């Protein structure tokens, strides 16, 4: 045995400086035939006797089976070749029988470094054009030479309270329970009478078929820390002025409600702000007209909701 009783400096002494190596960013593998390599950070789940995990997990750092590839990532694409990414979304279920996708984001990565590309793909983002009470599949799709290299997707259930109205840059909402939207379905028909028939003849104006309506709600600031509405005059009035400016900025908008209704619409003149029983309980009311299909790539493009280059459209 090598263990003796000497003090520091002797060949049998041991300096107990922590020996761990942190922030390992390099790995070299050589001089052998290798079948797989896996690194996982979950040392509570896996002990030294655990079998090699077969699936990627959130805690997987690298994993590869060297089956005609040297990739140790979850995606075996070459990020150097990726020039852009698309984010697509489609509603699952009866509302979308053709399983059509809508592209909600396009990002040009061609001038970015490897690390910048990875950061861009993995950055936190959000989609405000979702409908309540729907299940969506979202997909992130890296493009190589403009063609889809791989699709990564997952599903999420969408739901929210109140009414939200948004354009490309802003989203405003009211979660108070007395918000509501009334609608009218507009179709065009005319009736002509003839000399020799008792009843009038109806004439239909082809495809005209859209909603219009009015929305009302207390659009007041919401403190996300305390989950309380802020009725303090200065804060409330500034907030409501900015909201009125938003409603009257002439940009097409998406209006959506907690019950699953959603429209691509235009706010028609002129929104009003009225007291409801007391002076600081304000209710904003605005009328709107549906101007397109919120799931149409073309309609949302020309409404400036999404800015997706036309060559990527699928409809």
């Amino acid at each position, binding site marked *: 045995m*090598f*263990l003796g*009783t000497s*003090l520091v400096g002797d060949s049998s*002494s*041991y*300096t*107990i400086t*922590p020996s*761990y190596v942190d922030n*390992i*960013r390099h*790995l*070299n*593998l050589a*001089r052998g*035939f290798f079948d*797989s*390599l*896996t690194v996982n*950070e*979950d*040392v509570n789940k896996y*002990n*030294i006797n655990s079998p*090699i995990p077969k699936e990627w997990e*959130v805690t*997987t*750092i*690298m994993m*590869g089976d060297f089956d*005609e590839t040297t*990739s*140790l990532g*979850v*995606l075996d694409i070459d*990020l150097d070749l990726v020039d852009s990414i698309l984010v697509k979304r489609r509603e699952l279920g009866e509302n979308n029988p053709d*399983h059509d*996708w809508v592209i909600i984001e396009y990002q040009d990565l061609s001038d970015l470094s490897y690390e910048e590309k990875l950061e861009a793909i*993995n*950055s*936190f*983002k*959000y989609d405000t054009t*979702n409908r309540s009470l729907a299940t969506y599949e979202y997909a*992130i*799709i890296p493009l190589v030479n403009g*063609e*889809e290299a*791989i*699709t990564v*997707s*997952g599903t999420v259930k969408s*739901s*929210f*309270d109140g009414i939200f109205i948004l354009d490309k840059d802003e*989203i405003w*909402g009211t979660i108070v329970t007395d918000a509501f939207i009334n609608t009218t379905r507009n179709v065009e028909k005319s009736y002509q009478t003839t000399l020799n028939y008792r009843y009038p003849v109806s004439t239909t104006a082809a495809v005209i078929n859209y909603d219009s309506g009015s929305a009302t709600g207390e659009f007041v600031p919401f403190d*996300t820390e305390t989950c309380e509405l802020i009725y303090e005059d200065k804060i409330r009035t500034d907030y409501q002025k900015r909201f009125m400016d938003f409603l009257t900025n002439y940009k097409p908008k998406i209006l*959506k409600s907690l019950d699953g209704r959603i429209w691509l619409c235009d706010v028609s003149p002129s929104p009003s702000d009225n007291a409801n029983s007391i002076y600081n309980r304000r209710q904003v009311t605005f009328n709107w007209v549906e101007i397109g299909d919120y799931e149409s790539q073309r309609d949302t493009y020309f409404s400036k909701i999404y800015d997706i280059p036309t060559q990527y459209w699928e409809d």
Partner: protein
Amino acid sequence: MAVPVINVIKAFDATQGTTFTFSYTGNQVVGIQFVISRADTLEEVYRNVTDAEFLRAGTVPLKLQGIIPSDAGLENSRKYSMKLRVIDVYRNPTDWSAASYFTCYETPTLTFKDLESGDKIKAQSYAATVVYHQADNEKLQSYWFNLYDEALNVLSTSKTFYDVTEVGGVVTLRYAFTNLSDDTTYYIRCQGTTIHGMSCDSSPIQINVDYKFYNDFQVLYLSNDHVNGRIEYQGNFKIIWPDEYYDEFEYENSYIHLEDKELNYNRGFVIENDFILWLKGKVPYKNNTFLTLYNDAYSVTVESVVYDGYIKFKMTANNGLNNYVLYSQSFEEFADYLEDFVWVIRRVGHVYQFAVRTTTDFLSDVLVSYEKPDAEYVKTGIAWVNGDEASVIRVSKANIITSDTKPNKVNVPTIWIGGDS
């Protein structure tokens, strides 16, 4: 008396023959005779029946069509003329028709580029590239694409394209099949027509769509933001390639050959602190360092140590001041690359564990710590250095529990522990 008129004969492959039609106004036709000659020399190449046979035609009414057989002696890349006469049910032969001209071409091909039947498609769309080829340079006039389900029912058909472009003598057609569903088998097909009416067909090619669908957010994080009325999303892409190009290596039975090569992974990942690593493979019966993990200053290595007909594996964690060394069980000498091992390194805080096992058997387990490990790690065959977190401790038999044979070489200030239990 009326004479028959031969309808246009589309170009066809001489090795396959074709069927042609003609028009005739008169009594019921019971026999036809046609003669094919080379258009340039007028040399007769094929006659379907002799004059005598023609005049002895039976009484069975015939359709107004004829068959040019594949063994008619025609050659591709040649132009031919054909004349035809018929005999009616009253034994009246007509005069010969006017000559009709046609050309024989080798059947053109449409081939999906870089695609083999059964290939896996990793996206919800597939950008197909099809190469058109015709030996006689017969031009392609139009083409279209079909998408079929697994039972070859047509799911969709593209519009017909007429924009045929040729670059460097190669005609390449492109089309994107979109809205493909995950975990689904499809067939795709390209068909076309040449300027002389020849049909071409890629035949249905099977593709299996298998893109990454994740519901537990390991690659795509999705969350419903109830308060703000939005869906949050974030990629969690881990894309890790070595500096070397994958095509530089040989692969066999899912093993990568690194006898005289190496893989260096230098970007796309970071092992911040605790980890567990599994490496499965084969190494030669030699002294070699085959795995190195390192940061800008320090490293963790695994090497093979050969001695006296045995081999054991050594894990070294180096922090610049100490080597934290663990040895595996010993294995008897084996022929190069015969044994299949799994090397496992597990780091928890200051504690490393190192185990080597064969594919099926766990062979050794050594753990070193300056604190007594948790009870779950203290099993037969486990060793630990007992002490507190002082910068220096005195090592004696009293505060270490281990047993082993001594390695062949011990370096100062290396601490080694290895064992058969």
